[in-house]
């Protein structure tokens, strides 16, 4: 399905902008001074519930994460605040990256399964309609 590829593309776009530090900000980290790296709020620009809710779900599935939530700051602004707090001493960036990777894997798997299923359906239909033709 195209949208799986879209979701994958969005996530890999997000990751490259994290890595290369593009001039157009896609991602910021906000942290209270003096605390360690376990409680971080990420600000993702040009994103909405599409990525926010699905990413929140994948990060919550990580047993190391104590808290994960997201909000849209205002419906007129397209950015979300995603907050992650981890148990223990794990830096919060790790579950964030892990969540993104896992979300990409899920989308890839869904795309593969979907395309295989469509192909099966088409083959079945073709083989069913052959005798009559």
């Amino acid at each position, binding site marked *: *399905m*195209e*949208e*799986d590829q*879209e*979701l994958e593309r*969005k996530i890999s776009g997000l990751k490259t902008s994290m890595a290369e530090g593009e001039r157009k900000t896609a991602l910021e980290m906000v942290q209270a001074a003096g605390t360690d790296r376990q409680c971080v709020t990420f600000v993702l620009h040009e994103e*909405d*519930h*599409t*990525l926010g*809710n*699905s990413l*929140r*779900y*994948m990060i*919550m*599935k*990580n*047993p190391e994460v104590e808290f994960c939530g997201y909000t849209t700051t205002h419906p007129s602004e397209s950015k979300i605040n995603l907050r992650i707090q981890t148990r223990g001493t794990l830096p919060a960036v790790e579950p964030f990256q892990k969540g993104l990777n*896992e*979300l990409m*894997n*899920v*989308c890839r*798997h*869904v795309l593969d*399964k*979907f395309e*295989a*299923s*469509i192909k*099966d*359906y*088409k083959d079945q*239909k073709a083989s069913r309609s052959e005798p009559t033709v």
Partner: protein
Amino acid sequence: MAAAQAVEEMRTRVVLGEFGVRNVHTTDFPGNYSGYDDAWDQDRFEKNFRVDVVHMDENTLEFDMVGIDAAIANAFRRILLAEVPTMAVEKVLVYNNTSIVQDEILAHRLGLIPILADPRLFEYRNQGEEEGTEIDTLQFRLQVRCTRNPSAAKDSSDPNELYVNHKVYTRHMTWVPLGNQADVFPEGTIRPVHDDILIAQLRPGQEIDLVMHCVKGIGKDHAKFSPVATASYRLLPDITLLEPVEGEAAEELSRCFSPGVIEVQEVQGKKLARVANARLDTFSREIFRNEKLKKAVRLARVRDHYIWSFQGYEA
């Protein structure tokens, strides 16, 4: 035993009560239930996940997705509606419009016409570029003039007889290949999806002469770029009879649900109700208006089984 069943129900079913809905949110996160390992496991997900296509034709697609959560299913739905690109008319250069339809209304209508072109073969137009190139633009021409029909009967009042070209349809749109598009796309493959969409009506002496530029865009920008007419999903219904329902009550029960859901069978001379196909039900909750039967049925939905259906123009 009962506690384990209740926990299973909380984890896997959304229950529709008489006055409210219970167990709405996903709760299977690590640490919420003791004795369950809810951490994300890609292998377990891949084993449980399946997609079954139920029906597919040119315009509609219906399929089941089992084993995925609402957050991700909703993300797919949102992306389908808003972020899958298509080609649609963006700029209209009007050379002559003497019809009764104003320029901007006509341009708006032209933008909504679905265009049969694979958006993956085109690029997005860069911002600020006025001239389109062959890699990001499709050009169409629409030139129609309405005249009086000289061979019409004297006292006829039927516009189809009296006038020639008085209705402008999408079949009047002609594709103008740019650059090397004529080599890449064979004749007749780039066109509006339907050729019988009425664009405007004319009377003798009126003319429409314009050039349209189609670009690639996404639904977030403007709804004309959305590839689906409607994309929706629903959860699989799960109807359980908590006690055996016999005789007249069985007939009543089958009338409270959509046809085909409840089947009344003759067992040992008595009529007995049985859930035949819960998938067909639309959950009108008619059962709750029946005082006797509402305690005999539990209405629920399976939390991770999504029945998708969407209608597009090219599936």
